[in-house]
């Protein structure tokens, strides 16, 4: 077992799971990733192509972990296309984590897309700790729903629940995650809301939680080069997403002017969210 998270490990992809036509999970053996905390991420090296941050996905086998990739640009597509037996490099896990306070009994977990990756790890921990979790998975449409099986498996032997909603109503409940949350918080008292997904979705979730005085934690994404607090590319106001985050609480988020408004491009210029 490696004790230095910075040390690059070269691992073999042992299994690939196709989640949707554009989302794939790659399973590998790595002790450090296996014990990653929910919210932590790896820097994944696709040799001679890219290195990109990826949240650590849970895997049921001891000593194993995974990443779930949505194919997008050069790096993520190259990773998406890796096959069983291919080699990739890892360093990390880096970053802080979602905090499950001892007092929590009933939590709400809201995720969109691959944002569910760290949340499933969180949900699995919560269920093991006998915390009741309501997990909401939001997607635009049925084709984009994935992780349903694994989420059901996590929740099945607990009093937790798993809900799916789609914007177009093609699967699960019709509505956005924010509208789902709206109705859930009317009927339940949650100790904390946890969210990860598209930033504008998180902005809505955080806003609603704050208005209703519910503690909230969100895992954010920014462009990352180093992943360890050196290069500054992930800066979000005065915070570094890689080192101070990726998980921020409602109090921190309320002070971050850029949250849901703008991010920095590869050259460090600020770009507004559409």
């Amino acid at each position, binding site marked *: 077992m490696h004790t*230095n998270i*910075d*040390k*690059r490990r*070269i691992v073999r992809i042992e299994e690939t799971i196709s989640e949707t036509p554009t989302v794939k999970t790659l399973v590998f053996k790595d002790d450090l990733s296996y014990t990653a905390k929910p919210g932590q991420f790896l*820097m994944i*090296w696709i*040799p*001679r*192509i*890219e*290195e*990109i941050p990826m949240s650590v996905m849970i895997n049921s086998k001891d000593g194993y972990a995974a990443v779930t990739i949505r194919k997008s640009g*050069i*790096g993520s597509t190259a990773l998406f296309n890796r096959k069983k037996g291919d*080699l990739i*490099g890892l*360093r990390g896990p880096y970053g802080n984590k979602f905090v499950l306070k001892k007092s929590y009994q009933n939590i709400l977990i809201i995720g969109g897309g691959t944002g569910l990756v760290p949340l499933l790890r969180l949900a699995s921990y919560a269920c093991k700790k006998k915390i009741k979790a309501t997990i909401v998975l939001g997607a635009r449409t049925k084709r984009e729903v994935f992780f349903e099986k694994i989420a059901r498996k996590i929740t099945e032997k607990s009093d937790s629940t798993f809900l799916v909603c789609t914007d177009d109503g093609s699967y699960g409940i019709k509505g956005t995650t924010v509208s789902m949350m709206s109705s859930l918080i009317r009927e339940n008292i949650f100790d904390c809301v946890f969210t990860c997904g598209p930033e504008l979705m998180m902005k809505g979730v955080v806003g609603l939680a704050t208005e209703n005085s519910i503690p909230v934690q969100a895992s954010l994404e920014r462009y990352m*080069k*180093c*992943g*360890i*607090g*050196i*290069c*500054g*590319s992930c*800066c979000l*106001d*005065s915070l*570094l997403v890689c*080192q*101070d985050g990726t998980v921020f609480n409602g109090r921190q988020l309320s002070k971050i002017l850029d949250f849901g408004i703008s991010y*920095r*491009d*590869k*050259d*460090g*210029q*600020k770009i507004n969210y559409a």
Partner: protein
Amino acid sequence: MNTNDKNHNLSVELGKIHLRNPTMLASGILGISQSIFERLYHENIGGIVTKSISVNPMKGYPNPTVIPLGGGSYLNAVGLSNPGVNAFSKELSQNKTIPIIISLVGSSEKEFSKMVKIFDTLNILGYEINLSCPHVSKMGMEVGDDPEAVNKIVKTVRMNTTNPISVKVGVGSIDVVELARVALDAGANMITAINTLRAMSIDVETMMPILSNRIGGLSGNAIKPIGIRCVYEISKKLEAPVIGCGGVSSWKDVIEYMIAGASAVQIGSVLGSTGPRIFNQITKELKNYVEKKGLRNISEIIGIAHKY
């Protein structure tokens, strides 16, 4: 300067530049955001050098661009990614009190004069000219290896500003003291030494170079003894403030650089393991040191090793 200051005076003077303490942020480290600069200032930093800025925005190289090598050493080939002079002058436009030095990089005299004209309208302490980035062609080291180019660029910047200028030198293909001499003769006020050293790391399993650019710059612990040597040699042979840089990770390293001849010290890679609070911590420890040694001001130790 109040030498009776009960808090023990850590302030240092770099020619016309006054810093409340000798700790500075090295260029390229967290250096593109005014909010981060403010956070660092709250962490008691003495001065801040921004990321090297070019006329046009630069995306830099694909990742991997930064590799932790273990043992506190790092390899990077970021490719000078930066938002460019316009976006960056906007970023700093609200700056009032943060002691900022802008690092400049470029490939022609014209580029430097253009940037200086724009940045001179801001509240800044001065400039650092990066002539020593070891892994971007036609910028940095290739310029730094050509004394004639160095002379021209420094002269151009000098003609366009009255702000203090530091020239950042590295260990490359011409002698570091010679390079510093050329820079000072051309009008620079001080020298920053050193930048990273050209280096490389290859993965044994895949047999492939790790950095997308293959070759990058070595920083952190590994290069400290080289930085100390350069500061010692430059400060011994030339009359100008020297800013030490390379492998500083504790107050002891700051003191070692100052004893070697540095008037201030830049800190970079170590933030990868400590975060920004390192500045607060080191400043506190420097205060203890000054007190224990009974110094009136920390600058009393600058270059003291030259005596031996």
